């Protein structure tokens, strides 16, 4: 597989300096390094900034509904176990709208890899609180401070199934991201790579 043949003709539209570029290159590099035939790859994208990656690759793909990427991917994998199935979503889709699905399928041994861009914010909708926003942070939807405790996704997932491959990595570090993606794709079961990021456009709110 060459790098060219997985990219689409559409240039990424993320903000300059966005760490989603690292996940984009991370997926490309991991697939290349593992030499997985392009046609065997299915990527299921959630909705959000990271979900917009859907237009920047050309593989078999589903740009699914917000929060529903995991069960959609499970359906694909169960229907054709020969496929390499990857979920790409954000903290809103995977840990918020899709929390129930995340916990339910972390309990399973179905071999999908879930890559989460976790920047503690809803960014495509211009910066509201997410399930991983630190308590007290002021955001557009919580100007008085986020009232609830944040989710810590890796211990949460491991609590329901210690067998899964779940890690949280520094999403600003390409080496860590690529290594984790490769390991997750190779893991013969459910895997989670939580990429911790700062949103370059709306992230400053979290310092307040």
């Amino acid at each position, binding site marked *: 597989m060459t790098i060219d043949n997985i990219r689409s003709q559409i240039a990424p539209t993320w903000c300059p300096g966005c760490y989603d570029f690292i996940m984009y290159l991370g997926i490309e590099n991991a697939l290349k390094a593992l030499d997985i035939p392009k*046609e065997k790859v299915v990527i299921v994208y959630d909705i959000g900034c990271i979900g917009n990656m*859907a*237009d920047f690759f050309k593989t078999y*793909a589903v740009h699914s*509904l917000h929060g529903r990427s995991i069960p959609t991917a499970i359906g*694909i994998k169960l*229907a054709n176990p020969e496929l390499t199935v990857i979920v790409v979503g954000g903290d809103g889709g995977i840990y918020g709208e899709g929390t129930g699905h995340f916990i339910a399928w972390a309990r399973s041994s179905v071999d999908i890899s879930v890559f989460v861009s976790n920047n503690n914010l809803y960014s495509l909708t211009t910066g509201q609180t997410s399930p991983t926003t630190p308590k007290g942070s002021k955001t557009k939807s919580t100007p008085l401070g986020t009232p609830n405790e944040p989710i810590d996704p890796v211990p949460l997932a491991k609590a329901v199934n210690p067998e899964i491959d779940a890690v949280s990595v520094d999403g600003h570090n390409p080496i860590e991201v690529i290594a984790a993606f490769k390991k997750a794709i190779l893991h013969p079961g459910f895997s989670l790579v939580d990429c911790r990021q700062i949103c370059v456009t709306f992230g400053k709110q979290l310092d307040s």
Partner: protein
Amino acid sequence: MSSNVFTIKIAGPAGAGIKSSGLLLSHILVRHGFNIRDYVEYPSLVKGGHNTYQVSFSKDTIFTARYQIDLFLSLQPKHWQQHQPEFTDKTIVISEDATTTVPLKELSTPLGSRIYENTICLAIACYLFSLDQQLCKKIVSDNFGQQSPNNQAFQVGLDYSKEHFSTQIISSVAQTSQETGLAIHDGNESFGWGFLQTGGNFYCAYPMSPSSGTLHFLAGKQTEYGIQVIHPEDEIAAASLAVGASFAGARSAVGTSGGGFALMVESISLCGAADLGVVFYLVSRPGPATGLPTWTGQGDLLFAVNAGHGEFNKIVLAPGDQQETFDMSGTALNLAAQFNIPVIVLSDKFIAESSASLPDLSQQKIDQIISTKPLPGTPGKEYMANSYEHDIDGFAIEDAAPVKVSVEKRLAQFEEIKKAIPSPLFYGSKTAQNLIVSFGSTKSTILEALSMMDNKDDFAFLQLRSVWPLNPELEGLLTPFTNIIVIENNAHAQMVSLIKSQFNFNPQKVLLKYDGRPFFPEELAKLLNS
């Protein structure tokens, strides 16, 4: 007995084996060459309450269970009094506290448990209808196993009957001698068989009455048919799994009732946007909200037709009985594959949990239409199924011109869909004075009511089979009639609104029923003539 249709009803608390002994009775009747149609009522609880099973049988064609009972068997005291409106002066009521008393408790004591009283009652019914006792005993033994105390219970029932009843009580049942080879299927099972026989291989459902029968049926067929049946965390996941499976090439379906269907609605819209064929089997019960979980109604018609945000193509089929549920299960899978759209099969509790004697559905194959979409794994055909408005490769679009092209592509497809949907069925004479119009489960009651009426030739009957889109030929079928009678099992006359939204339609009479019960033939015959 003036009619050649007979009806037996068994009543008692939940957990007493009302339905199991009722189904066994139906099985015995079918083995004697009768056609059967049954109807069950039960509350949403596991023990206690009041359950009933009734079966009508005839050597002639029969469409649905009758209201008036010939033989009523009450497993415990106080379970027959509330059914007196269903009795005629010839009805035989058997109960510890009725005119014809049977000391069930005393008879079951030597057997060690009151659980065998249903089998004792079963034997009494077989005896009173002069059924072949050797055949009955064999069927009972095959059902329970040779060592089961139920065999003894059946003999106890026969012995008691011989001693206390004359077989002449109900003597005019004309038995057919040869077996018909018919099998008994309820609507949920019929849907499952249609799914299997059309190559369905991926079924997802979160349990919800009255649709769970299909989940249980298909789950039990997984190994034999090599299919996958998944019970996930909720209905949203069930629909999402089916969507994903469809993308990967499975012939997928989900099953649910109104409340679960509400959670699946976003996936219906997704199927419409992303060109994914999935079948949604919606078995209605009365709402709103949790409503009446174990009762029947047609209150979800407009919900099904309008399910999903945005404008996209979908088909809603409405089978009228168990055989049509089988047929339309297959039709739905084929239409979903042909057009890559969501197809809803709208049934209700009355069809889904009632049984009919039908040709053995395990032996009926349905021709398959296979989707021509590229499957993941095929080199060089990579594309995206996209929930966003998209171009032909699946990439998102926002410019005005390509968006318009995409919308108009769906509009053009809608015209093709209208040519592919099942036509309405017309029964009777095109020159009849009155035209009855209905959809779904009222069909069987209408046909049974007409069969009972002396003036049945005054009525023709038009059954909608596709409730969305409405078949364009519908207008031409309606126009010649000035006296139109609509029959719906809901309170808002939703089908009237639906037809009015497309055609000039002014029915003279609208008969509605919205108490959780289906229309009964006797009731409908009276209403049609009033």
